[in-house]
């Protein structure tokens, strides 16, 4: 049977624009410099959001993936871009979180009066655009090497954000993050090289047709997975994450925790469900999920023991990443309703966690700004001073716990029922236990915040209402995701048919 030759679909050019507007924007921001960097980002925010929505609408209407063949050179010689429902949904999430971050960060990264240009603002705004372009490139990439370049772009945009304040501890955190990420990409590239050697292409669609269960595919799959696990900070490769995410400035923490780790996760999903669906044996899927379960328990317990709010939120990310990996054994295998549910649940977890965690990191940033510290012991009565912020933090927390009607609830409920339907009750136990532990560490924060008041002596520094509004909006989105009818998540299933899975 001859292999299908990729052809551009109508609307495929949108994918090129989704890649090029942030890349060109980052170049403009650097060339113009000074206050213009921020203006470039603000001007491009509606463009990016509009493009993401347009791509999703096209994907949904066509009920098929958008494809663009770059330069007219079809794979395997050239590179194609491809956006299925998963890409489109994550692109909208990315756009929403980055726009919110941009609005939130304006107060923090303003060029001071009297200076033509300042270090941190220029770097932040240019890197934010770079991050956006990198995430879009990761989401629409259809070629393993092109994805490698996209991953590196993501790393180099993310790492400097960690240490914008220039303190020794954040520098160390950034360096550790970079070393993990570099090792991860080296292993990823090694796997890609082996796949090319064995099958003569790096295109995901072509590979899905050519990959056989043989040593080359096994070695390559293992290397790529381990490399990406280091980047997505799955237990036990999570060591770099808490200091990096907790030490970064609040807007940077928000995008790092909400989006950057998800980029590597999405590629693991692509690898096992798109590139080599036949090779995702039960044993491999169980190992991934076991690591995820360990991450849930370990991350939650460590979150319980943190003294600082931002460290707690960061360890909570370690735990919530674990949930994502539960989807592998539940969505693998036959395309039954359980598999569909697990797939939707896993991706909904990624999306709702992105919104909720971005809101929580921003809320933690506002609290730290108001109090001058973020020690949990000293949070007494903060809810009276910052009611909106604490409310938003709580809403985000509900989504992480999986309480109705949040998006996190629907995600965890879908995973839970898939676990029960497929007879893998042990994962159901993990999900329930994780929810309880999450509740425990959140109440450690919320109880003193809502009730205490005795330790709350100095008047807090004022916090801009508009920034609180941004945080609240993100938290509400993570909540409202749970109120949408389940059918509206059909988007994330679109395009899986090309890969031999019938929805």
């Amino acid at each position: 049977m001859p292999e299908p030759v990729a052809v551009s679909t109508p609307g495929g050019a949108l994918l090129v624009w989704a890649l090029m507007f942030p890349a060109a924007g980052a170049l403009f921001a650097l060339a113009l410099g000074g206050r213009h960097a921020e203006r470039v980002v603000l001007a491009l925010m509606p463009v990016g959001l509009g493009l993401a929505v347009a791509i999703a609408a096209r994907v949904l209407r066509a009920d098929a993936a958008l494809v663009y063949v770059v330069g007219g050179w079809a794979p395997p010689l050239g590179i194609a871009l491809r956006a299925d429902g998963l890409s489109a949904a994550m692109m909208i999430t990315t756009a929403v979180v980055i726009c919110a971050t941009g609005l939130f960060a304006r107060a923090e990264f303003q060029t001071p009066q009297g200076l033509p240009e300042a270090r941190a603002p220029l770097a932040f705004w240019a890197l934010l655009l770079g991050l956006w372009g990198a995430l879009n490139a990761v989401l629409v990439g259809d070629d393993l090497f092109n994805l490698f370049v996209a991953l590196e772009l993501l790393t180099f945009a993310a790492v400097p954000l960690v240490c914008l304040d220039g303190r020794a501890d954040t520098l160390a955190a950034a360096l550790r993050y970079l070393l993990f990420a570099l090792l991860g990409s080296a292993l990823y590239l090694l796997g890609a090289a082996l796949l090319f050697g064995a099958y003569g292409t790096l295109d995901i669609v072509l590979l899905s047709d050519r990959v056989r269960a043989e040593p080359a595919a096994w070695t390559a799959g293992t290397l790529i997975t381990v490399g990406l696990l280091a980047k997505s900070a799955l237990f036990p490769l999570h060591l770099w994450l808490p200091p990096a995410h907790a030490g970064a400035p609040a807007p940077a923490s928000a995008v790092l925790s909400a989006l950057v780790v998800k980029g590597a996760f999405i590629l693991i999903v692509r690898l096992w469900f798109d590139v080599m669906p036949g090779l995702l044996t039960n044993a491999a899927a169980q190992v991934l999920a076991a690591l995820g379960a360990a991450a849930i328990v370990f991350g939650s317990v460590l979150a319980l023991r943190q003294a600082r709010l931002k460290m707690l939120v960061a360890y909570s990310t370690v735990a919530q990443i674990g949930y994502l990996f539960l989807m592998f054994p539940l969505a693998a295998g036959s395309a039954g309703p359980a598999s569909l549910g697990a797939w939707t649940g896993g991706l909904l977890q990624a999306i709702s966690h992105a919104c909720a965690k971005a809101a929580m990191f921003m809320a933690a940033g506002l609290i730290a700004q108001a109090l001058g510290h973020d020690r949990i012991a000293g949070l007494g009565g903060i809810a009276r001073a910052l009611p909106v912020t604490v409310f938003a933090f709580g809403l985000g927390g509900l989504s992480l716990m999986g309480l109705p009607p949040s998006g996190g609830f629907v995600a965890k409920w879908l995973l839970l029922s898939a676990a029960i339907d497929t007879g893998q009750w042990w994962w159901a136990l993990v999900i329930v236990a994780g929810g309880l532990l999450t509740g425990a560490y959140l109440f450690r924060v919320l109880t003193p915040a809502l009730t205490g008041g005795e330790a709350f002596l100095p008047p807090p520094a004022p916090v801009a209402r508009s920034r609180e509004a941004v945080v609240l909006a993100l938290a509400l989105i993570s909540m409202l995701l749970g109120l949408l009818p389940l059918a509206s998540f059909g988007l994330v299933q679109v395009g899986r048919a090309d890969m031999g899975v019938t929805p």
Partner: protein
Amino acid sequence: MTIAVTIAWAFDALLAATVLAVALWTIVTRETFAAVVGFVAFGLLVALVWVRLAAPDVAMVEAAIGGGVTGVLLLGAAARLRGVEAATAAEWPGKTLRLVTGALCAAVAAALAATMLLLPDPAPTLAPEAAANLASTGVGNPITGVLMAFRGLDTLLEKVVLVLALIGVWSLAQDSQWGGLPGPQRQAQPDQSLVFLARLLPPVGIVIGVYLLWTGADEPGGAFQGGALLAAMWLLAMMAGLAAPPPVGSRRLRLVLVAGPAVFVAIGLAGFALADAFLAYPQAYAKPLIIVIEIALMLSIAATLALLVAGPPERMPPR
């Protein structure tokens, strides 16, 4: 004939053994500075391996960037860290951990070796497809065809990677030094023989760099190799104190840095109108367009590489 084959094989075996020996020495030697010197030698030897693998383009990039510019970067770092490295000597992991790690790494290497031996024969290759389509790009060097046409998107994104990495390096500056000159204060009186070299070499190097770009369309060479050479010449002049690095706030510098990727993006987008696809070239103008992009890229690459080595701004321009 068989004698020639045997000699070639013996040479390859010797080369492989030497590369591995130097690599091993780089890992196990105690002194960091010596290890970096070993790494530079390693880079040059690896460039030879690339020649033996019939990849002269890669050999040039490896020698210029992999060994050369990376070597300068790491040597500079090792020299500046000499004072602080003594405090860390005692922190090596214990013997058991070293043995376990060694066993694991040996297992990885063995798995890789086995996979390499089991790769299909005849090997899958895209060379025929590349050859068949090369004519429509107008260039004669297949590597240039891949980098600028077939997989132009990779090259474009990689240029953005370089720019972002430079922003990242610059972001490590102190706030008070922003807008200043990259790199530490050079010693007041640079060595006279270095100054001599820095006067003699750059004119030759610039000519060779431009030649590499020009010849790269049809023979080994191209924007990367030429750009790396120009970067090396600029670094040499900076080290000898003949050229001050530009302040990071300079508008002209910023334009040079983004020129390459910006021209690439612009011509790529123009492809929508002129050739029906992003990053497609109208066939009649393919070669001139590629050359225009490569010239802009070479300048940006040269500036970016040199400034990545120079580091974040650390001193204000003299008034």
